[in-house]
């Protein structure tokens, strides 16, 4: 029986007063029409109080017609009435709306910017740049770029930054920077020799400390001592007989040999360049589209409609979600950037291909030997054309510093 009245709160019910002669008989009629009636009380001989569901009110009115009974509604209960009552309280509703809106706005506002791990000057520089991008206290977060974008722009604009991590923690932007530091030379290197790391013919030497062991035009192999870190006379060879009695003391001074030893070295480099080549590049043209994003997939475009006129394009999409307190709402702003992509086809003559291959080989070698080295001359040793490719083997002469340090062991 209770079953009937359990969910009644959600559908709503009313208390009615039935007035008339023998009002209880009216319920017989109602019950026949499948109207649920409960908690019937006889107030006095002319009045009955009862409760009926909200959806039965129209049936009640229909049944009343022509009977002479009078109906009066006394009180309303349940959620639907509560809801309509609430709707009539405009100031309350307005207040709720305003508070939700303000929480919403405040949740999407930048409240704090933290920069850590950098010097105060750099910190100031970062903050100025952030201000330029619009990332400042009180800014609306939706209009700002994604943290990754901010990170990239900061890295581009501040050359002193080696790396910066931009993290969005709710209403706080936490930035952690790593400044570029000039690695200082080892303060005081231990005693050492300079030895050759490659074979070559020495063309130039500059020794600031130590004793040169080789001269210009000498040919050296890897491991040969170029500059010795031992200064002074070599002790006379130890006589086998004397060895037991008096040990000759080594009087030589140990120093850290420093200097540059430039030698001519040579390399064989092979390179291959195709005669025909197709590749794609971004032309630099781009178009932005903005859309309001609901959930993961549904997008409502707001700016930039239709297809772009690009024949081929590359898409990059970033979505920024609205926040409410610490939750990310499934509603956000999506930005799609389309970059035009152009396919280029290159046909080379054999001469052009060879020139290209030489250029590539030279670049390759420069990377290998380092920027300080000079490439003196180059020569094509061998060239073949097969499978639509030009293959070259080139010979290079390079002037480079071949000195590398080798510590002197000082014994135990």
């Amino acid at each position, binding site marked *: *029986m209770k079953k*009937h009245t359990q969910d009644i709160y959600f559908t709503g019910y009313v208390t009615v007063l039935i007035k008339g002669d*023998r009002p*209880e*008989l009216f*319920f*017989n009629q109602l*019950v*026949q029409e*499948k109207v*649920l*009636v*409960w*908690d*019937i*009380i*006889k107030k006095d*001989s002319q009045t*009955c109080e*009862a409760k009926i569901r909200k959806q039965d009110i129209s049936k009640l009115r229909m049944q009343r017609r022509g009977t002479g009974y009078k109906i009066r509604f006394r009180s309303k209960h349940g959620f639907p009435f509560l809801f309509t009552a609430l709707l009539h309280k405009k100031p309350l509703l307005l207040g709720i709306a305003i508070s939700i809106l303000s929480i919403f706005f405040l949740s999407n506002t930048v409240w704090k910017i933290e920069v850590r791990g950098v010097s105060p000057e750099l910190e100031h520089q970062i903050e100025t740049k952030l201000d330029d991008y619009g990332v400042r206290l009180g800014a609306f977060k939706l209009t700002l770029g994604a943290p990754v974008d901010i990170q990239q722009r900061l890295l581009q604009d501040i050359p002193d930054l080696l790396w910066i991590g931009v993290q969005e923690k709710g209403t706080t932007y936490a930035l952690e920077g790593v400044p570029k530091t000039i690695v200082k030379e080892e303060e005081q290197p231990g005693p050492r020799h300079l030895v050759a790391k490659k074979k070559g013919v020495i063309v130039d030497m500059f020794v600031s400390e130590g004793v040169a062991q080789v001269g210009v035009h000498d040919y050296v192999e890897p491991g040969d001592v170029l500059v010795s870190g031992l200064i002074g006379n070599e002790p006379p060879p130890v006589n086998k007989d004397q060895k037991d009695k008096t040990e000759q003391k080594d009087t030589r001074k140990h120093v850290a040999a420093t200097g540059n030893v430039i030698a001519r070295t040579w390399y064989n480099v092979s390179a291959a360049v195709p005669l025909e080549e197709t590749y794609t590049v971004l032309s630099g043209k781009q178009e932005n589209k903005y859309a309001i994003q609901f959930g993961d997939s549904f997008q409502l475009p707001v700016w930039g409609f239709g297809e772009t006129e690009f024949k081929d394009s590359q898409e990059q999409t970033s979505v920024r979600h609205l926040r409410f307190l610490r939750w990310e709402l499934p509603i956000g702003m999506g930005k799609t950037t389309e970059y035009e992509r152009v396919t280029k086809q290159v046909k080379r003559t054999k001469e052009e291909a060879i020139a290209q291959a030489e250029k590539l080989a030279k670049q390759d070698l420069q990377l290998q030997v380092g920027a300080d080295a000079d490439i003196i001359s180059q020569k094509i040793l061998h060239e073949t054309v097969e499978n639509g490719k030009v293959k070259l083997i080139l010979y290079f002469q390079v002037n480079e510093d071949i000195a590398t340090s080798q510590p002197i062991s000082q014994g135990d």
Partner: protein
Amino acid sequence: MKKWQQRIGNWFTEHLDMPADVVLELPRITTIGHFHAYIENHRGLVLFSDNELRLRLNTGFLRITGESFVLKVMLPEEILLEGKMKEFKFIDS
């Protein structure tokens, strides 16, 4: 005709162990202490007040007297009465 029906009904309840209220269309009254009375198979409400409930039955009326009566549930053939009951009386018509 009615007599004849009742005789068949009586035979059913006696020999086949079928519940009397179903076969004979008689009211079934369940009470819990003196404060709840559940009446099934009645034929309509005749009178209801603070201290009396009168129901029409197939054969006559049922009169319940007491104090502070409330009809907790009212359905076409069922009534749940709440209050302090004193007397149940069957009245032949």
